[in-house]
């Protein structure tokens, strides 16, 4: 082919480039989706906890989406905190994801001084889950929940959750 026909080869090159780019983009989407959590993993994303047997002042740890969830039923010594408390019936509860907001270790509940303490990097949270010391950048996260009678359904965003998150 003569050198004058260069634009023909340029066209073939560009056409191939366009096909490869479209194919590559689809391939990337497919690869991204293969790494997404499986449907079975997503379906297991709900946990129901019955709060009625809990005693005032009691701390309880449950599991939701393989993460620890801290639940405390407040007693009369613990001040109500409208921006953090989950109200079920007439009782106030603290419900948080039990993972330090720094790097995701599990802080342990110290009942004597009513604090959550993370051994990894020394982060501390008070009983409301507010970060009071160390590297954690924000309070413990509140998991999405729905209130169903005396039961707490974790994994679904109920109206109480939306209200709480809006004020927090």
């Amino acid at each position, binding site marked *: 082919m003569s050198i004058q026909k260069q634009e023909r080869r340029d066209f073939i090159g560009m056409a191939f480039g366009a096909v490869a780019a479209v194919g590559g983009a689809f391939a990337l989407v497919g690869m991204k989706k293969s790494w*997404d*959590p499986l449907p079975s993993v997503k379906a297991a994303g709900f946990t129901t906890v019955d709060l009625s047997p809990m005693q005032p002042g009691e701390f309880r740890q449950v599991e939701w989406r393989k993460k620890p969830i801290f639940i405390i039923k407040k007693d009369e010594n613990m001040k109500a905190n409208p921006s953090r408390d989950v109200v079920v019936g007439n009782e106030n509860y603290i419900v948080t994801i039990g993972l330090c907001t720094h790097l995701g270790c599990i802080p342990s509940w110290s009942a004597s001084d009513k604090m959550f303490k993370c051994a990894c*990097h020394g982060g501390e949270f008070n009983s409301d889950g507010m970060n009071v010391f*160390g*590297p954690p*950048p924000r309070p413990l996260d509140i998991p999405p929940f729905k209130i169903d009678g005396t039961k707490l359904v974790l994994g679904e965003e109920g109206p109480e959750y939306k209200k709480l998150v809006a004020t927090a």
Partner: protein
Amino acid sequence: MAHITKATSVRDWFDQRIALTKLWNVLAGQYWIPKNINFLWAMGVILTVLFTLLFISGLLLLMYYKPDANLAFDSVNYTIMKEVEYGWLWRHIHAVAASVIFLIIYIHAFVGIYYGSYKKGREMIWISGMLLFLIFSAEAFSGYMLPWGQMSYWAAQVITQLFGGIPFIGGALVEWIRGDYAVSDPTLTRFFMLHVCLLPIVIIMVIGLHFYTLRVPHVNNLEGEEIDFELEAEKYLKGDTINSKVIPFWPGFLSKDFFYVSLFMIFFFYLVSFHFNFAMDPINFDPANAAKTPTHIYPEWYFLWQYEILRGFFFDIGPLKAADIGALAMAFAGISLLFMPLYDRSDVVAPAHKRKGFFVWFWLLIIDLIILTVYGKLPPTGFNAWIGFFSSVGFLVLLLVVLPIITIKERKANR
């Protein structure tokens, strides 16, 4: 096609078809190495040997390892360690080599810094080497989590959580990397894929690139002397081997390397046989437990300096959160040495002891890295936290401020 004649020997048969002699000369027989280098230049060959050991011992472990969250721990700690004949040996070779390879990588890299082998024509050698260091870090981390012990589980939890610090997409990104809401079976299987397949392939390719980058500028030497390799090679080929400043890679240089490799292997198998425990964290002999964090989490020794930079920033500065500064500083520390050719503004290629300011800087950097490593293992409370903070800041200042200043001064003084 080439004109093929009846072969006069086996070698000639191959020479006619795949130019074996030519290839050998390009790779070894006429690949020229300066005479004035010492044992510190043997680290590259030691690293190649260690990588080969890791590859072979890894293949043998792979035959019995089960990438399943319920089976992984026992497949390593029972099947491989107790049932498979010599399974313990492959595991200890693999674990000790994984640890020691970082020691040699650090020596290899700091020899490069000391002798200025990262600049003036040798930038690609340095960049491809630092790329190898980064991929090796990913390889080490993905392999560390496979035995599914407590420490490896929580290391995976914390390292994947680091991506949560990225604005807006952080949370979703962490779930995507893990394939679940927490580190669990899908995370294990994908890290298994990365560790035994994708990353080794990439490593082998980058090792090939790293070797190739040596071909044009050649290795540096003890004096930083600029050698005319073509001229010296001509001298050597004419028979004037005494006055020539170079020797061929094979047999000249490699025979010396084999000597150092042998010495190193004695040390290596001494570790494998008698001190394999240093590469095994006791906490990792507890099976992974997603409901309980070990009281004190720390990485393997070779990541301690980066880990200490991560947690060195323990208080907020203005609008910046401590955790974000730490994560940014660590991310930077991880890739920081890649940019050595940019920080060094002088084009003097000479060993550090002939560059006064640089010499002081070099040893300050080493001391700082040792302090970071030591304090990375200690609990980050009280006084320790402040040492961590100042040595983290020190690392960044040494690289980003001090090095450019002293090298610009050096350049001006040389004019």
